[in-house]
């Protein structure tokens, strides 16, 4: 078997595409799946170009890895990056039967294709591409003549899809938006939270780290002044509890020196 360039491209890109597809199905996190399928799509684009379809290859990179994968990642951000699969099977044995079905489908399709394709038909696209002066011109000639109706229908399809997405994700506001005045009044109502700024952390002279709570006028510590992430840590030593007398002693000690 002679080693031609296309075979090398096919083995590398096809192998990477299969690895990416398997990684997409097997990876736990949805973000990893998205990156794997982006890899599959880029490799498929290279294979399109190797099949003398440069226009489709470029469209594949722009439309799929550019637009579609961006949309996927955007929705992943909305839905939550760490949303992982539930391991409960709603239908018992579905996983096993799914895998078995997939493998059976692969055997059936590859076997059927292998028998049907046994004659090595390979006319090549050089003549068809050269007829109108290039691949893009050839495809354009077909789109704007034989497939004109289908092409114009896609315009309607895309507009409908865009409108559908807008309507599906639209949420009706069912109470009026609060104005600044109303927000301010609500803040000073009896029983509301502290109206002003929260005391800032670290008001000691010698120590102003964020884990040092501010001392209120009555000498007690204000834990509100320590940021929430520090406070919620399950470690009692993280907050620097110093009472006001310690500070006074420290200050007097400095005076004597």
């Amino acid at each position: 078997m002679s080693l031609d360039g296309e075979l090398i491209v096919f083995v590398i890109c096809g192998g990477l595409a299969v690895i990416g597809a398997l990684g997409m199905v097997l990876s736990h996190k949805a973000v990893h799946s998205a990156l794997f399928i982006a890899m599959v799509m880029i490799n498929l684009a290279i294979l399109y170009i190797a099949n003398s379809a440069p226009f489709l290859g470029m469209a594949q990179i722009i439309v799929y890895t550019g637009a579609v994968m961006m949309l996927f990642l955007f929705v992943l951000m909305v839905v939550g990056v760490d949303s992982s699969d539930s391991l409960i099977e709603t239908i018992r044995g579905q996983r096993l039967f799914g895998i078995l079905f997939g493998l059976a489908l692969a055997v059936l399709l590859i076997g059927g294709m292998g028998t049907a394709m046994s004659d090595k038909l390979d006319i090549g696209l050089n003549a068809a591409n050269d007829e109108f002066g290039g691949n893009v011109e050839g495809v354009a000639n077909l789109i704007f003549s034989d497939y004109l109706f289908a092409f114009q229908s896609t315009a309607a399809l895309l507009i409908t899809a865009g409108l559908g997405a807008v309507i599906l994700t639209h949420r009706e506001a069912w109470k009026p938006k609060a104005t600044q005045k109303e927000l301010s009044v609500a803040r000073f109502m009896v029983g509301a939270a502290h109206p002003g700024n929260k005391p800032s952390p670290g008001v000691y002279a010698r120590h102003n780290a964020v884990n040092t709570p501010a001392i209120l006028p009555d000498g007690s510590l204000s834990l509100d002044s320590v940021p929430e992430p520090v406070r919620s840590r399950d470690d009692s030593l993280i907050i620097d509890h110093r009472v006001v007398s310690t500070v006074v002693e420290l200050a007097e000690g400095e005076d004597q020196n």
Partner: protein
Amino acid sequence: MNPVYYIYLATLLFCIGAIGVLVRRNAIIVFMSVELMLNAANLVFVAFSRMNGNLDGQTVAFFVMVVAAAEVVVGLAIIVQVFRTRASASIDEPNLLKY
């Protein structure tokens, strides 16, 4: 090189995508598997176009891309909407019609 290899590769990718649709429960990953199956079909179109020496296959593959893009937009909007009402991206979650 014999272009039938492309058909085999596309078949393999299609079946991996089918397994993904059947086995995974995260709606977004299921959706990506559907995209993989569409891409595999596109590869078959391109390979057949090359084998038969005319550009119709590539034109159809182009239309498949357009339809896939429209499908992604609507599908992801539905996923976002389901996530808003159910706070879950699992495709087993929306089962109200069952009862």
